[in-house]
């Protein structure tokens, strides 16, 4: 299954530079250099120009409550969380495809050398095996941190996740559980990932009682939420927005700390509209909030949901009671997307407060396309337009 991913990476080589290439269209530097050195390519440039990133990451205020911090991008903050875990929990093991040499996104660099090859190791290329194996490790009482190379390749393990991991505790009457299992997987669009390097499968899992699904928006959240997932006594899926692996840089505490699961975070208070998103899309709606303020004089409350399941309905509903309007945005397709769950719950809970229909700005109901990505994603202009229409409703 992950063969396609490996192909993509191998053709690019495995050096740092090539991984940057794979990671995001943000790093347009290489393209720019090329154009400069070969002016005859001007004609080509018109059709080959990389579309600019659809979001802007802004570091947040420095956290001091957890001790000294260090500048880390998202993949480094993941490594830091894994490092803290292996250091403090002698049973913890990390495994998956290609994690031993540091992982195709560099999230496990150095861990094998530091903690030994029996704790950080490659598995055969088989997703259902990786998750089944991880469940077994957890059932035996050890801490299992499994990596699925791309969220797009998690489906071969769907049975092990939905029928097994999620139901282990319930079906055994709490005799056995796999609460020590965490599954990490790169997630979300990347500019050119096409059908199988772009997916956001959280809604498939949101329909499955027994697991937790968590998605961070930046390095600080990634480390804190990942450590919470690992410590949590329930099987967790942790989706890492891969476009942020290098693009998002922040001051991250070096020591371990936890950000609570099932708690949304209000990033910006507002009074006219509530905007809800998770992962990269949080940065999109933050920008939308600024645009709405500037162009329309509309005050937006921006909320990062953070945990998809079980989700923090209370924070969202409280916000909507105040603002009277709700926009939910996600990259995944609209039909059956998690925005549907949020909007129907809010409609039930806040019917008397709603002044306009709840808006969902999401991916279209198509597979994730390669060359049409700029038109596919629910970018800031699509979200902005929805806010405008909602205000004028």
């Amino acid at each position, binding site marked *: 299954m992950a063969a396609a991913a490996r192909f993509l990476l191998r053709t690019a080589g495995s050096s740092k530079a090539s991984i940057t290439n794979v990671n995001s269209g943000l790093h347009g530097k290489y393209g720019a250099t090329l154009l400069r050195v070969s002016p005859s390519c001007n004609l080509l440039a018109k059709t080959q120009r990389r579309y600019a990133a659809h979001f802007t990451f802004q570091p947040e205020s420095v956290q001091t409550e957890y001790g000294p911090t260090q500048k880390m991008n998202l993949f480094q903050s993941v490594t830091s969380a894994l490092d803290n875990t292996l250091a403090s929990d002698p049973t913890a093991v990390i495994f998956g495809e290609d994690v031993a040499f540091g992982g195709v996104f560099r999230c496990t660099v150095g861990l094998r050398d530091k903690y030994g090859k029996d704790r950080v190791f490659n598995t055969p290329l088989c997703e259902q095996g990786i998750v*089944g194996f991880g469940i077994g*490790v957890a059932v035996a009482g050890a801490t299992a941190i499994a990596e699925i190379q791309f969220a797009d390749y998690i489906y071969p393990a769907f049975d092990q996740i939905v029928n*097994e991991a999620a139901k282990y505790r319930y079906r055994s009457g709490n005799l056995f*559980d796999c609460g020590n299992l965490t599954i990490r997987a790169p997630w979300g669009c990347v500019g050119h990932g096409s059908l199988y390097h772009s997916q956001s499968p959280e809604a498939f899992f949101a329909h499955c009682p*027994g697991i937790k699904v968590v998605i961070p928006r930046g390095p600080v959240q990634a480390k804190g939420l990942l450590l919470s997932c690992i410590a949590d006594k329930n099987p967790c899926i942790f989706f890492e927005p891969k476009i942020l692996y290098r693009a998002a840089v922040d001051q991250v505490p070096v020591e371990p700390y936890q950000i609570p699961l099932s708690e949304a975070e209000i990033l910006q208070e507002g009074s006219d509209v509530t905007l809800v998103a998770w992962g990269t899309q949080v940065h999109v709606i933050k920008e939308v909030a600024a645009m709405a303020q500037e162009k329309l004089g509309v005050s937006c409350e921006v909320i990062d949901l953070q945990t998809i399941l079980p989700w923090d*309905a209370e924070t969202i509903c409280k916000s909507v009671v105040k603002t009277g309007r709700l926009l939910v945005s996600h990259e995944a397709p609209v039909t059956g997307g998690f925005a549907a769950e949020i909007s129907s719950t809010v409609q039930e809970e806040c019917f008397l407060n709603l002044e306009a229909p709840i808006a969902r700005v999401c991916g279209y109901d198509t597979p994730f396309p390669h060359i049409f990505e700029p038109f596919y994603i629910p970018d800031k202009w699509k979200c902005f337009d929805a806010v405008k229409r909602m205000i004028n409703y």
Partner: protein
Amino acid sequence: MEHARCLRKLCGIGYRLISQNNGLRDSSKLIQYRAFRVNSAVQQQPLVERPEFPGSSAEFTGRLEFVEPDVASGIPVYRVMGRRGEIVSPSEDPQLPQETVVDFYKSMTLFNTMDRILYESQRQGRITFYATNFGEEGTHIGSVAALDPTDLVFGQYREAGVLLYRGFPLDLFMAQCYSNADDLGKGRQMPVHYGSKDLNFVTISSTLATQIPQAVGAAYAIKRASSDRAVICYFGEGAASEGDAHAGLHFSATLECPIIFFCRNNGYAISTPTSEQYRGDGIAGRGAGYGIASIRVDGNDVFAVYNVTKEARRRAVAENRPFLIEAMTYRVGHHSTSDDSSTYRSLDEVSYWEKQDHPIGRLGRYLAARGWWGEEEEQAWRKEAQRRVMEALQKAEGRPKPHPDLLFTDVYQEVPPHLEKQKGAMWKHLKEYKEHYPLELYEE
């Protein structure tokens, strides 16, 4: 053929040299290896080329020849005891003491009695489902007896004998099947989905083969904990077709796990005969492909099963590697109470196995030949077993179902707010519409 012959001629000289002279072959290997390492192959070109592909360790051949499977004469079936209960390989006789063998027999027959009574119980609509173990009692008892009580068991759903032998009380078997308030699983799963933390028997789930890679993960964790324990993972030959079986076998070898894969090959997966299940040499024939030491055993010979499991367990723990046991047996009963097997196999076939080659019958003849068990003991024990099972059944039937609140717990370790809310909504509803629900059957 012509092409093949030409090829052979071309490559023939070197090839023959290599295959005719072992000493030369070894030294040429060394030279070739060194040449490759120092990256100056041109200067140190060996006499004979050897494949340097990282994916396998093999010689070149000039013969175009597909490797044919040998299905006609497959891996032999290891046995100790003949169908008349006689020891056919005296050197292999485990020479178990009388009380152990009698205990085997009593466990198998008690298990058989429980099966018969619970099967009838389902037929009468007292429980919703049942799956018997007729004909496979020997595989359960023989294998579990060879394990350490702390060895972790992952099963499918036809391994209740393992649990029984480890001392799981009849009351708890019944509680699970009746989904009553005593069920350790809190009445959540269908009957025969047993589990016991105390007896190291991981709770059964319906999804076939999912336990296989899980058992491997547990074996890996156990290896790291250096607790000198092993894991045994049972599955049927049908489940072995699932992708998860491939995953588990494969991972166990590369990650060097102390695990015994125990396949019960009873000839059928519901109605599907093995000829439609696979075309290779059964399941044992696959082991070597994964780099797993494998053996095939007569599953109706409790001593043979005991011996192979004992040895596999010893080596799995000592060497941290997996072993595959394929126990050949026959599913004498229907697949489950939802199945009528006469629609796809003949009664003659079933009756042959029931009468001519049954694990209980065989062990009974062994005991009788030694004078360790007579008609009198048989009568008394059958009566006793029947009484014990009936008592447990009646007790289970009289117990209420678990409290309805238990529908909401253990989904997560904690009960999240949305589930608390849903529980509240359910009770509010039940209060208003209680006459439409069987509340009186449940614990208050």
